[in-house]
């Protein structure tokens, strides 16, 4: 019984982790059709921002929840203004540009911060279930992921800003004919997506540490999760994170972490074969 509870809690932690890592990419890809290959590096920079803030004496929660997302949002605004704005509607070009940006950010981070892992202690300890000890921080992450997704859903579904964003996503030209400036919508969307990547980096720093090349590990998983989720940014990413996170954790428990990742990739491949437009291309169509 204890073991089952531990597995379920681990699944919740893994789902929260995957959801946080994917949501920034989901917002930018889902709303703007831009595949941001620098997403992993945005996570990395969020991690560095949090760690350096903590080292400078700032409260760790403030560092993770405010400074990390804000720092990466500022970078996102610059990237959108200087690079992406010129490439909208050209998916391959945005991929190439963001790949170049990814390499540049890795190079700069390595030069300035060194090619070594830096870390920070988790702000919460562990708890016991029977003879098993579990890190409480994983569940804090799952809780934060839940809040982020609930807020994202509520904003897109119930507010005027969300309505304008969904309309622009569906038909940019028509939205502009109705007085909406798509360039402004895209700039805000890119900044929010970047902030969410920074938030993920800040929150993951205590459990994974931060290294200039860490982004590669995240971007692939995030990309697979977003594509499996389909067109609906929030609903799709939440469903695919739940599905793939569960498969990954259960497989890891039964076998090894490497085979757990293999199972995740295999499951995503099968899902995309069966549902080429992703989960929300078939069910929950039109949900935010």
């Amino acid at each position, binding site marked *: 019984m204890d073991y089952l509870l531990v597995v379920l809690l681990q699944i919740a932690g893994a789902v929260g982790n995957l959801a946080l890592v994917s949501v920034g990419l989901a917002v930018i890809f889902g709303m703007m059709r831009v595949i941001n290959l620098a997403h992993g590096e945005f996570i990395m920079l969020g991690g560095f921002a949090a760690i350096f803030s903590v080292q400078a004496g700032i409260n760790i929660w403030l560092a993770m929840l405010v400074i990390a997302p804000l720092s990466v949002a500022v970078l996102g605004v610059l990237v959108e203004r200087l690079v992406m704005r010129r490439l909208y509607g050209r998916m391959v070009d945005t991929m190439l540009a963001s790949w170049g940006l990814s390499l540049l950010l890795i190079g700069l981070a390595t030069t300035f911060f060194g090619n070594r892992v830096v870390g920070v202690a988790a702000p919460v300890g562990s708890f016991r279930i029977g003879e098993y000890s579990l890190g409480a921080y994983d569940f804090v992450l799952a809780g934060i992921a839940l809040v982020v997704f609930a807020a994202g859903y509520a904003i897109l579904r119930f507010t*005027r800003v969300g*309505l*304008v964003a*969904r*309309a622009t996503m*569906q*038909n940019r*030209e*028509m*939205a*502009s*004919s*109705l*007085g*909406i*400036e*798509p360039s402004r919508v895209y700039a805000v969307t890119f900044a929010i997506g970047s902030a969410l990547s920074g938030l993920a980096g800040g929150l993951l720093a205590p459990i994974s540490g931060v290294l200039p090349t860490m982004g590669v590990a995240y971007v692939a998983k995030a990309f697979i999760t977003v594509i499996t989720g389909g067109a609906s940014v929030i609903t799709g990413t939440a469903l695919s994170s739940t599905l793939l996170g569960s498969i990954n954790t259960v497989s890891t428990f039964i076998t090894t972490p490497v085979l757990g990742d293999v199972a995740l990739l295999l499951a995503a491949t099968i899902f995309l074969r069966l549902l080429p437009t992703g989960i929300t291309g078939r069910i929950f*169509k*039109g949900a935010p």
Partner: protein
Amino acid sequence: MAPDLLTAENLQSGYGRIPILFGISLSIAEGEFIGILGHNGMGKSTLLRTLMGHIVPTGGSIHLAGRDVTRASPAARSRAGIGYVPQGRQIFPALSVMDNLRVGAAHQSPKQAKAIIDQVIEDLPRLKPILSRAGGVLSGGEQQILALARCLCAHPKLILLDEPTEGIQPSIIEEMKDTLKALARSRNLSILLVEQNLEFISDLATRVLVIKRGQLSGEIDPAKLHDADLAGEFLPA
């Protein structure tokens, strides 16, 4: 004589390096209903897209109520009073009818938006029972009425209407004709209508301009469009 609302002078535009419009000059007075007639590929839709700002003109100028909007974005033109109902309707398919209307009124204050939407629903009562349905599942006629309603929610002074009868059943076309007449009168709207349905255009327009190879080639008395021989000149073969 009402003052001019929109004036285009020597307007030239096209797609990439392919020129389509070769110096079109026209003006629309406040409350005037102008029809544009021409064969396929003559530049009718390009003219509307250029006036809306979706195509940047390569030459000439566009003034709206005396203000130069030649280089203004489509959004800025919309906020200045130009409305656009494109060919194919371009409904937001995943949004409900009500949300499509809300997007139309998005740049108004919430209070104004509510009042405008309520008025539009009153003017187009066919929308009332379908407000919660997704735009993408509506019939062609319902989508066309929604496209017009959504445009009205942006509170335009001038509407650019591109082939509204295309693929629509006759009963809805009649309803649309009556609605457009009533709206133009009650709101003092100026309307620039591109259409291939001669009966529709002749019943609504006070002036009909003919476009040929990207230039305005003349003007026809709308009453004469009922003449079958004349009609043959403008209908696709």
